[in-house]
């Protein structure tokens, strides 16, 4: 008798699956979620109305269809997202064949894996709480399954009552707490690799959060509503004043009439000729960057050296050699008093002067007129900024949409916009006036947490500004937004607008959020960003030798082999039992066949007696019968399971 899976346990397993896969639904394409939910719904209905199980051939076809759907959604080169989606889909599919305790146990155990996989995508502390809840649910379900199994397979009378839910939950929590020290030990001391073995295909990444490396209409706007942290900075020494907190991100050179794009998408340009030398009063700080799955790092102007594993582009942006897929911590020393590129190369100069000449003719005429008034570059810049400040320009997050001649429309008609509009317009005006200019994107400002002494920079602090190249002075930062809304630079975006961005956007909510961000900061610092490097430091402090990565790989493989060797006998004894079952099944078939041929036998007859009787009735088959008897005895009683195939063949031959 196979132990039977009770209704309650099917529902509990489905519950665990739902809880474990729910975070995935927000990440997967909607149709994948729909398919997954459809299967779960079918299983619940099948339970309710007693529908028959899906036949094997249909299950196989459905599984392949789901695989195809995932490939269609994510392409052939899979990263974490596609892998997690596949896991979610296949676990839903597993429900189609969850009719035994063993299946349910497998399903729930895999849900634990799926729950842990959420940490690939969500690093917030509330997700930890959620995953803990899923794990407790899973352990409770596993206990129920175990109980069911024991009651049905043991020969003794079942216990009269099952313990109340609260007891089961308590024992689940107790078990998890007991396991916690071991988990902590493994977390800190189990050897970590600097990067995964298999590498991380860049196609698999899909920077869905934070800045992008192009600026198209609305691209920054979408970030203004996002209060999630972009990075946190701890300063050694004084903080720069708010107006100096420009965190440089991608620098944009090319403009096609709508979109801005970088000069060097692959970061293959050479580094600048020189970087500033650090001074005693340079800003020294550590950035703890939330993963954004791109390669750029943020720093104040101008970094004096590159942190390990990173480089600096010709436009002074720090970038990592690997995409930032987990919380990354790096130290920078920035020296703001530096003349960046006092001389400009001809190719860069022509890039920094390019604009579509057939567009925005009105603006071109306007700036040409202004240019005649102010022949000195600096004076012209001031005049344009003054124009932004004194004419009726407004700072707004919901500006009217712009058409083909965007600069003309903005400058003379709508006069409403945010940093993107001002930076873009100003840069183009400079280019029209013959002053090399470019757009810089990044973040501006940040919330300083006095108690925990760190600066929190959120996605909503995203910003864009301009840089112009002046002879002898090099690249100079000009922020036209500051001319329109100076408070944007001094305070932050939410306070600038006065009104609320969303219905729940209260000042006190923001301040509470800023305060409890300390917990997340500590969590990131001690847990999330605990990587191979930090482990090396910890192990070193404990006085243990820390092997280098190549040796580590070999050690891990050896560890795997040793574990395998230890586990193998267990698996073998388990398999042996199953194979004995197979032998028994074959033997029963053999007896049935002989019974049809007139050789009667009872369960108390030994194989030898049966064969003896069969030989008497079927003397012409003597050799075959004796061979079957011999193979059966050897495979079932002699622990020689490899003979099972021979036995099957011999039986079929009969």
């Amino acid at each position: 008798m196979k132990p039977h899976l009770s209704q309650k346990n099917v529902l509990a397993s489905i519950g665990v699956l739902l809880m474990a896969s729910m975070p995935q639904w927000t990440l997967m394409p909607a149709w994948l979620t729909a398919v997954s939910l459809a299967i779960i719904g079918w299983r619940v209905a099948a339970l309710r109305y007693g529908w028959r199980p899906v036949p094997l051939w249909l299950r196989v076809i459905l599984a392949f269809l789901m695989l195809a759907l995932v490939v269609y959604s994510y392409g052939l080169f899979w990263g974490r997202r596609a892998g997690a989606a596949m896991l979610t889909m296949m676990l839903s599919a597993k429900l189609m064949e969850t009719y035994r305790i063993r299946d349910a146990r497998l399903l729930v155990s895999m849900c634990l894996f799926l729950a842990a996989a959420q940490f690939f995508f969500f690093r917030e502390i509330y997700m930890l709480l959620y995953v803990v809840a899923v794990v407790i649910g899973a352990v409770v379900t596993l206990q129920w399954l175990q109980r069911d199994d024991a009651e049905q397979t043991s020969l003794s009378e079942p216990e009269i009552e099952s313990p109340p839910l609260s007891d089961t939950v308590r024992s689940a929590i107790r078990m998890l707490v007991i396991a916690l020290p071991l988990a902590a030990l493994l977390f800190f001391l189990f050897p970590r690799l600097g990067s995964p073995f298999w590498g991380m295909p860049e196609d698999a990444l899909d920077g869905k959060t934070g800045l992008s490396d192009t600026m198209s209409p609305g691209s920054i706007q979408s970030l203004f509503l996002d209060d999630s942290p972009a990075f946190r900075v701890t300063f050694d020494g004084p903080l720069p004043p708010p107006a100096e907190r420009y965190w440089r991100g991608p620098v944009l050179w090319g403009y096609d009439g709508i979109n801005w794009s970088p000069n060097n998408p692959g970061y293959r340009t050479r580094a600048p000729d020189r970087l500033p030398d650090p001074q005693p009063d340079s800003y020294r700080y550590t950035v703890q960057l939330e993963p954004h799955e791109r390669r750029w790092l943020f720093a104040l102007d101008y970094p004096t050296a590159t942190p390990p594993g990173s480089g600096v582009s010709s436009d002074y942006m720090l970038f990592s050699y690997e995409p930032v897929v987990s919380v990354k911590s790096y130290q920078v020393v920035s020296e703001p008093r530096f003349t960046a590129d006092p001389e400009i190369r001809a190719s860069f100069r022509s890039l920094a002067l390019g604009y579509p000449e057939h567009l925005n003719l009105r603006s071109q005429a306007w700036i040409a007129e202004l240019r005649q008034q102010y022949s000195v570059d600096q004076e012209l810049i001031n005049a344009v900024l003054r124009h932004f400040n004194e004419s009726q320009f407004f700072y707004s997050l919901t500006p009217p949409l712009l058409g083909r001649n965007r600069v003309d429309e903005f400058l003379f008609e709508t006069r409403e916009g945010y940093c993107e509009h001002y930076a873009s317009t100003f840069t183009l005006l400079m280019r029209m006036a013959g002053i090399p200019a470019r757009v810089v994107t990044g973040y501006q400002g940040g919330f300083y947490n006095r108690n925990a002494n760190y600066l929190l920079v959120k996605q909503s602090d995203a910003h864009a500004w301009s840089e112009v190249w002046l002879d002898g002075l090099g690249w100079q930062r000009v922020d036209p937004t500051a001319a329109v809304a100076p408070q944007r630079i001094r305070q932050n975006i939410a306070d600038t607008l006065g009104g609320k961005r969303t219905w729940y956007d209260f000042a006190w909510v923001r301040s509470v959020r800023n305060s409890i961000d300390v917990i997340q900061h500590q969590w990131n610092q001690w847990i999330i960003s605990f990587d191979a490097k930090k482990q090396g430091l910890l192990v070193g402090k404990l006085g243990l030798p820390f092997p280098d990565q190549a040796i580590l790989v070999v050690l891990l493989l050896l560890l795997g082999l040793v574990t395998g060797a230890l586990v193998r006998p267990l698996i073998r004894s388990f398999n042996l039992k199953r194979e004995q079952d197979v032998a028994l099944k074959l033997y029963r078939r053999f007896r049935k066949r002989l019974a049809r041929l007139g050789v009667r036998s009872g369960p108390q007859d030994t194989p030898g007696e049966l064969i003896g009787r069969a030989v008497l009735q079927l003397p012409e088959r003597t050799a075959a019968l004796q061979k079957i008897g011999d193979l059966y005895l050897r495979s079932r009683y002699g622990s020689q399971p490899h003979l099972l195939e021979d036995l099957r063949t011999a039986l079929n031959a009969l």
Partner: protein
Amino acid sequence: MSSIPNAASNAENRQRLADAISLVNRVVLGKADAVELAFACLLARGHLLIEDIPGVGKTTLAQALAKSIGADYHRIQFTSDLLPADILGVSVYRRDQERFEFHPGPIFSQLVLADEVNRATPKTQSALLEAMAESQVTIEGKTVALPKPFFVIATQNPLDTIGTFPLPDSQLDRFLLSLQLGYPDPAMERELLLSEDRQTMLDQLQAVLAPADIADLQQQAGGVHISEPLVAYVQALLDASRDHPDCAIGLSPRAGLALVRAAKALAMIDGRDFAIPEDIKRLFVPLARHRLQPRSAATEDAEGIARQLLDQVAIP
């Protein structure tokens, strides 16, 4: 002691075992099954009880077995006036040395044939049975170990014969197997009548095994594989014996252990390194016959019960 088994000598010993069995079969005609079971009993470190009427070859079997394994051998004829000291030995006062000297009795040999064991009084029987159980004897406060291997073959006449004392029930358990030889079948009997004198044949019989080889074979038998379903079968048989309506007392766990041990030895004699259901089935009646106690004389006798059990219990 050849305690380190090696493959070559293992195989060699098993071959010699087969030779010994065929030698004994040549002397004891038509009893191949009983001979194999007797060897199985020996290799399972058990003792053997042969229960039958006089003249069917009990003594011949015991003697042939002893000869073939080269064991030193004593026969004790049990009679109603036999005393424990006649078996164990006595201490005699040596006046010249002014001290007692122990004269070991016939039990100090590797193979003891206790003939007609149920003709002696229970007191004397107990002396033998205790020696069998403990492989040592205690005489006048001194404990003396018996030689190794130590193997007792006891014969007894059917219990209802006049002038017998039945063996105490509790001590019958000391015997691993009890065999019944029965009359030979007609063809064998004719051959027996024609062939030469048994005693001459026994005298000419050469030992093919040494006592050390027996120790090695005993060890090898212990290593024979017994699979899980077979253990389940043994357990089911034990269980069934305890539930049988005609049975006053079922089989003990010790009986189960003995069955497993004997099955391993029998498997080795048969040239296998794993036991199979046939082994259990062949051994079960000789093993259970003297252990099962029928509820009353009117119901089925022990052998009948054992056969019923075999017919009831399915082989897993």
